[in-house]
């Protein structure tokens, strides 16, 4: 199994969920995170001036799938989460040794 860990823009989460659903991928875990990368932050207004925030709100989507589904998932995310501007995010593929379902205790490798 593989964990597909995608850091994307919060406003693209809805589209990404839909795109995955179309591919039959339903299970996922979402975390609110802050990140920075190539994107050099965003300007915010203060009472009388601007300031730059370098850590921007992102959303981490974690999807654990069988190895053969990885490409489908990655493609779906890339297409749906993309805006083409810097800051679209990254996907990390992390090997998972085993998955256990808490309700039943059954395991899958």
């Amino acid at each position, binding site marked *: 199994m593989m964990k597909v860990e995608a850091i994307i823009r919060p*406003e693209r989460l*809805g589209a990404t969920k*839909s795109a995955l659903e179309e591919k039959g991928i339903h299970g996922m875990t979402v975390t609110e995170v802050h990140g920075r990368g190539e994107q050099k932050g965003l*300007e*915010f*207004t203060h009472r009388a001036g*601007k300031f730059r925030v370098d850590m921007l*709100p992102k959303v981490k989507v974690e999807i654990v799938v069988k190895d053969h589904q990885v490409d489908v998932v990655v493609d779906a995310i890339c297409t749906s989460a993309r*805006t083409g501007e810097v800051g679209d995010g990254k996907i990390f593929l992390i090997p998972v040794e085993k998955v256990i379902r808490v309700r039943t205790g059954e395991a899958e490798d």
Partner: protein
Amino acid sequence: MAVDAGNTAWVLISAALVFIMTPAVGFFYGGMLGKKNVLSILGQTIIIIGMVTLIWVTVGFTLAFGGNGQDLIGNFDWIMLDKVGIEPLAPYDFTSVPGILFMMFQGMFAIITVALIIGGVAERMKLKALVIFLFVWTLAIYIPVAHWVWGGGWIAQLGALDFAGGTVVHITAGVSVLAAVLVLGKRSTLSNGGVEMAHNIPFVVLGGALLWIGWFGFNGGSALAADGIAANAFVVTMVAGATAAVVWGIVSWLHLGRPGVLGMISGAIAGLVAITPACGYVNVTGAIVIGLGAGVFCYAGILLKKRFDYDDALDVFGVHGVGGTWGAIATGLLATGTLASSSQGLLYGGGFDLLVSQLIAVVVVYAFAFSVTFVILKVMKMVMVVRVTKEEERIGADIIQHGENAYS
């Protein structure tokens, strides 16, 4: 009449209480939205306080309350508050409060009415377009209707009753939102079937509680004196709000199996809306009936939205439009004739006279508010960009329009 300290004290504090209703609406609405749009609502309430105050002290007050007796609109006698001073102001000097205070108390009503609208059109208009729309709306709709009802215009002459603004405030705002969302269309996030949970229900309750206390000034202060009429208005306000909150809870318990907190506070607001036109004329029994009707009708009013598939984001029509209408009609049914007016409602032996006047006022204001709002926004759409882009909608108004995040 000379200035009376007791009455002035009450109208002073009532004006302050009505003031707080506008930020309160900001919390009531803002809490119901997602957290990327809450600041935009709060910011709009500040802008409205600023803009409408300036309109009011320059031309608004004189156009609404000047020329008492003229059918359609006031005059410029009091432009820039000329002659409006610290003495009672004829022909409103029955109030025994300083003219400038009478002016400001009425101005607070203009502010809160405009603020009600932003909940309906939320999450889709460009800030600049919204500000222009509300500016024109204040002049073209609020001020004329205020004149008709309170400035001695044709509705006042007709004998229709509206103690604290069922028609002037709630129907104008509610119906205009209906017209506006038809012109503007739905939020794109909504069209995708996205449902957004209220991001902070405690803020909704906070806003609702502040609205409720503000309403005591809104309705009680409309007596313009600290007398029995003010006391009666205060009490029936409490009773109608309380009744409608309970009724809403029961209705949703029956309908959904559980009473939601968001629902019950909305029910309270619905009851407060409905009692507004009636509070100078009905007794506590009347208030219970009005609260009961408000709970049922406004609940149904919100369901209308799904049925007819328009996007009145925070149900300004469902709560204020429907509630204001019910209150205006209920006044024609339940006015006792022993309080602020001798006109009696149908159920208190007054026959159909008052009821018919009430209905005429309601129908004409519906038609007026709807059509003028429709035209304003249609014209605006032709000459400027009124809506934000889909991408901006998704990112949220706080970042896009204000460059701020509510929380960090």
